[in-house]
């Protein structure tokens, strides 16, 4: 039994070099652009290219596709080193969601075209899965691609495509065989996000992030942009889920905000008494700290399975269930600790910690919804993880 992430010298070297790079290059502005989903500014774009140039962004991928060797441990090191600095790996959708699927299932041409540009930090993708009437029931999607010689012609609408306003490509799931059973008629395409016929409408969210509706009006997509085999799209989407959930969710990200909150309670008085001396505040803090540690233990276990080559199925759903609910409890505790002032937002005179907990509280609302609702995930855990009948 060994919970050490880095066990080889190479891994340790990678971690420390990457850490040093990030300490040097990551600015608050870049972190802000990462976390807001409002679009990458020039700073974040430049940073992505700089990281790409080191070869580290492609760590874990074959060299011929722009990768730099290394293992899944390196990928996890990368994710964690960014997370502990409250940043996100640049072009994360391309790097951890679309890229790996392409690597396993894409044609040689597709891989050669896209993977090196992902590894170089050049391009980002946006997921095009959800439709207004297909949320939890993703397999009911209705947006269609019609075969038309060398290309498909696509019309319809997607929603909650969070990166579409700044991403370069749309990772689009559409129905290609309306007559097949639901899961069997869906294909994945890589579509130029700026192609003629595409309209992107912004959706403002409670948490302040931007997401989008994306409308397709007879958009022509060459057949070379089909990912893998026709009508296998749903399986490609599903097979990557465990890996994605682990790589995208890192509770270590909560540690810096927690430390700031802790420090705030040690230095701020309410009613003549330090917050940290209030037993209610103490209980909230202790519970928050405990739950972060528990989440980390669960993540360690999931990563150990992944590293071991074991399938990461319901374990990833369970991890997301735990982590998302934990983040919501975290925000509730934080607001309880901060009281009325904790409801002040960025820019308000006297807002504790610059209003970050008010912001966090709004943001985490979607955590138990997006990327699989808790209800769907619980059913997955119960049926796939525990063998209960469907």
């Amino acid at each position: 039994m060994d919970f050490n992430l880095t066990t080889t010298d190479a891994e340790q070297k990678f971690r420390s070099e990457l850490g040093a790079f990030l300490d040097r290059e990551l600015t608050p502005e870049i972190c802000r652009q990462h976390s807001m989903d409002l679009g990458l500014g020039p700073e974040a774009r430049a940073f992505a290219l700089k990281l790409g140039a080191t070869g580290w962004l492609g760590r874990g991928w074959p060299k011929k596709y722009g990768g730099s060797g290394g293992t899944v441990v390196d990928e996890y090191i990368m994710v964690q080193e960014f997370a502990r600095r409250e940043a996100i790996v640049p072009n994360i959708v391309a790097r951890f969601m679309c890229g790996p699927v392409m690597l396993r299932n894409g044609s040689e041409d597709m891989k050669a075209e896209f993977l090196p540009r992902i590894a170089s930090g050049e391009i980002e993708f946006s997921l095009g899965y959800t439709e207004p009437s297909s949320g939890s029931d993703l397999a009911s999607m209705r947006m269609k691609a019609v075969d038309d010689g060398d290309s498909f012609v696509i019309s319809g609408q997607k929603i909650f495509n969070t990166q579409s306003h700044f991403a370069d490509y749309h990772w689009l799931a559409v129905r290609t065989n309306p007559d097949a059973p639901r899961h069997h008629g869906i294909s994945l395409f890589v579509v130029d996000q700026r192609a003629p016929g595409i309209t992107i409408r912004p959706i403002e969210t409670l948490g302040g992030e931007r997401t989008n509706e994306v409308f397709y009006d007879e958009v022509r997509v060459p057949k070379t942009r089909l990912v893998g085999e026709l009508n296998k799209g749903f399986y490609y989407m599903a097979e990557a889920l465990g890996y994605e959930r682990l790589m995208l969710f890192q509770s270590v990200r909560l540690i810096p905000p927690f430390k700031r909150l802790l420090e705030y309670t040690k230095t701020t008085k309410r009613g003549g008494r330090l917050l940290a001396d209030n037993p209610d505040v103490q209980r909230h803090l202790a519970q928050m700290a405990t739950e972060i540690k528990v989440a980390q233990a669960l993540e360690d276990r999931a990563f150990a399975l992944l590293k071991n080559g074991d399938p990461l199925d319901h374990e990833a759903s369970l991890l997301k269930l735990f982590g998302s609910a934990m983040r919501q409890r975290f925000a509730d505790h934080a607001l309880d600790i901060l009281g009325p002032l904790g409801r002040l937002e960025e820019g308000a005179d006297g807002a504790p910690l610059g209003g970050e907990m008010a912001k966090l509280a709004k943001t985490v609302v979607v955590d138990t919804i997006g990327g699989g609702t808790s209800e769907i995930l619980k059913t997955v855990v119960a049926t796939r993880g525990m063998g209960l009948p469907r």
Partner: protein
Amino acid sequence: MDIEFSEQQSLIQNSARNYLAATFNAQMLRDFRLGSQVDAEKIWQEMADLGFMGIAVPEEYDGFGGNFADLLVLLEEMGRVTLPGPFFSTVVYATEVLKALDKQNINSVILPAIASGAITLALVMGDEGNIFDVAGLSLTAQPDKDGYILNGVGQFIPNGYESDYVICAAHIGSAKTQKNDTGIFCIAVDVPGLERKPLNSMNGLCVAKLTFDNVHICRDDLIAQGSDTWPALEQAMFRTAVAKCAEMVGACARIVEIVVEHAKERRQFGKPIGSFQAIQHHCADMLTDLDSARWMMYKTGWLIDEGKASRSDMAMTKVWCNQACRRILAKGHQVMGGIGYCEEHDMPLFYRYIRMAEAAMGTSDDHLTIVAEDLLWETFA
């Protein structure tokens, strides 16, 4: 035992629901949050004309003379539309203080003006929304020859930016612990030395920071002082906490309606999501929380009107409404799914409203502490 609304209460409910539903829509409410004052004065006057401002003002002061439960009925309706503006701070917060202080010379001037919609008020009490501790008053008033000099900062003052007058509780002199030295002042916001700054909160610009820098107050603006003052204030604060619960219950009642409607209409996996047990049970939990909060709130209102409400009864009401409404909000979002996270939907209005309300007039922790204090010193019956 008869928990039906009185005829008068039903009238209040209907008139408020009809007016508010016809007047507010989601876009307007979002605009208000971001600072728009379009139609604010017109709406304010219409509400006054409908008698809303005078609901809890005694008839002798040109009010409607309603009891506390009548006020709760009206506030529940206002919660349903997440009513913005200085209604609560004027008609509940400030009015409760004025009624509790019971100074006829003051009330005969201010209460009719409140009832007619002529003026709006805010209240400066304790530090950072801490309203239950006399040692935590935000301001000090130093006597000088023709009055007082007010200093201090009122932080997180509901509607402190858009009100005409501010009622301030201040320590007179320098001692900061005695209940006897509390003085209450009523001052116009244009007095020199008072700076008001709106604060960006989760629910927009509905609170403010008021800085008093050597503000000269003439003697007549002291409206109460002495040993009765703090107990009266405290009583008003607890009643106001219960009133805040009525707003929260109204908001949550509307959340439950929105969510149930969605659960009936939204289809996934070939059927309405409301036919799935997980969604049904979320909804049942929401209704359980809503009903329990609602009847706790009205029962406490009735106890208040009967003169039988203890401090604990009122504190427990805020504890439970805070806890129940937080769960309703969370489950509501969960049932709504992604669409409820979009600002164009109604849910974010309620999210912002409830998050502010659960911290207003005492958090759960604040009130549990009060309940515990009373449990340990009084008899639980």
